[in-house]
């Protein structure tokens, strides 16, 4: 069906409105980061830009160390989640049992539990295992946190692969591992990639666990922002500068991978 010009105009206007509303806080934050504290407190659109806040932020904290933690923990958590999710989704998609559907729904339901509900037990476990304030600990918790979503997404991608192609592989002599490596992964690569991207973004932005389970050694950028918010909550310009530096990498990354991401998230929905 073809939309009339008026409908298209309306859709475009709606799209732009939503985009602007969503983007405005980020825009404002970036703008504020270039203001002096005085300009930031009394919101002003016209001001003389300054790097003062950035200089202060750099002087006070080791940005690179936090950023490196973020990268290691996000990539580690994503890789670990994929490592478990690929076999799990494979077996659920191609060798389903009566309980597969239930298992999938149960996995998703765990996402509805408020994380704070398990904070104390996890904290105690981490303390006994010596995982507090370690990258390993965060990698593990991020992998667990994203596992349900990653399994779900992979499952839907795998469902689109005709079983006969894998059966043909088995007839050709493929065993489970070769089947997954030579047939399933190449066939679902766009899906696996967008799943990985989403997991990466979720890990990067996660604040609850990183704030509660790290102090200095393994703290990622979310902790870096937080360290500016608590003692100096009123210094909006510095806070904005820290936040801008924290979200910039993932924002740029997301910008370059948005095609892949959109393709992956709408996979199967549009034929």
């Amino acid at each position, binding site marked *: 069906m073809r939309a009339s010009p008026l409908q298209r105009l309306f859709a475009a206007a709606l799209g732009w409105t939503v985009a602007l509303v969503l983007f405005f806080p980020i825009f404002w934050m970036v703008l504020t980061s270039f203001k002096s504290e005085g300009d930031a407190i009394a919101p002003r659109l016209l001001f003389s830009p300054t790097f003062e806040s950035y200089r202060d932020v750099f002087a006070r904290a080791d940005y690179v160390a936090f950023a490196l933690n973020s990268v290691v923990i996000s990539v580690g958590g994503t890789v670990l989640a994929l490592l478990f999710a690929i076999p799990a989704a494979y077996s659920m998609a191609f060798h389903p049992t009566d309980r597969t559907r239930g298992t999938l729904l149960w996995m998703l339901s765990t996402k509805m539990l408020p994380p704070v509900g398990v904070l104390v037990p996890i904290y105690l476990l981490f303390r006994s295992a010596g995982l507090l304030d370690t990258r390993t600990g965060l990698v593990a918790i991020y992998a667990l946190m994203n596992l349900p979503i990653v399994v779900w997404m992979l499952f839907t991608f795998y469902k689109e692969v005709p079983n006969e192609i894998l059966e*043909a592989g*088995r*007839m050709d002599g493929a065993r489970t591992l070769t089947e997954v490596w030579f047939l399933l992964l190449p066939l679902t690569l766009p899906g696996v990639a967008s799943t990985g991207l989403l997991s990466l973004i979720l890990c990067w932005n996660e604040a609850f666990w990183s704030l509660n389970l790290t102090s200095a050694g393994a703290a990622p950028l979310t902790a870096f922002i937080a360290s500016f918010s608590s003692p100096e909550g009123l210094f909006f310009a510095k806070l904005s500068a820290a936040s801008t530096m924290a979200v910039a990498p993932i924002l740029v990354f997301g910008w370059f991978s948005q095609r892949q991401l959109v393709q992956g998230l709408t996979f199967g929905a549009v034929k």
Partner: protein
Amino acid sequence: MATLTLRDLRKSYGSFEVIKGVDLAIADREFVVFVGPSGCGKSTLLRMIAGLEEITAGELDIDGKVVNRVGPADRGLAMVFQSYALYPHMTVRQNMGFALRLARVPKAERDRKVNEAARVLQLEPYLDRRPKDLSGGQRQRVAIGRAIVRQPKVFLFDEPLSNLDAALRGQMRMELLRLHEALKATMIYVTHDQIEAMTMADKIVVLQAGRVEQVGSPLDLYHHPANLFVAGFIGSPRMNMMPVTAAVVGDAAVTVGLVSGQQIAVPASGGATRPGDALTLGIRPEGLHIDPAGPILVTVSLVERLGGLTLLHVKAAGDQDLTVQIEGGDPTRAHEQIRLAIDPAACHLFDKAGQALPRPARHTLAA
């Protein structure tokens, strides 16, 4: 060398049994066709042989070894799927060489085998294309090529031609037969198309509802169907079936009375049949002839003129629908009344349970 033996093979999904005990011996180099209506279990049986479906009970032997617990990768069989199931992300060359690559065959030998198969199947110009850039017929060839390069013990075909148009199907049928002769391999072929079954098979296995109805050569099944199901399933147009009553029962002939009152002495051995028993008389459309002095009076309802053949659809006494096949053209028109003669030697008799009464003389072509 590859022989297969199926011993009381069974398959159940939960409490639902789909294959109900199949016994079958397949000789080396034999071309065996599983045929039957949809849902009869023929594809399931093939997949059990392939190893893609677990065997619930019974034994499957390949070359004298029980392979029930052997996975599909280790049975040494190749399969051509109805959907072709080509690997979409690989070129034709990679598709055909995949099995060899997994088997760690050196690249030079792999290339030689793939090129050889491509030559046989006339796929050489397409070796570097991907499946999506090929026509249906070409994809079909790639699927066959993928099976050939492995030099498997047994080829399994699951309705491989059903996605092709009629002309291509006829051509591929001939090519598969040529291939069978050239490769000297055992082949098991599943189809619901009885023309494929009749033209290709050394041995046809007719299946219905998970059971084997009859096993035999194509002409064996055509001329000596074991029961009503096989008689009705093999042959196109279908065999005519008429209710009759046994009058005189002998070992060499059974005389039966038609609804219209005429009697026919059919060469068949009566066995346990008693005079007065209800039987079914089967006669193929080519066993009926137009004869002004014939015993059966019918009204023509429809005429199908195929050029070389004419099919008359007629109604006989008792609202009985019959089909008559006449060689060449025929001037008969719809709504005319004509008389038909029956060739008693072409008649089949079936008892109440649907089993055929044995015919004393074998047809000369039915080994």
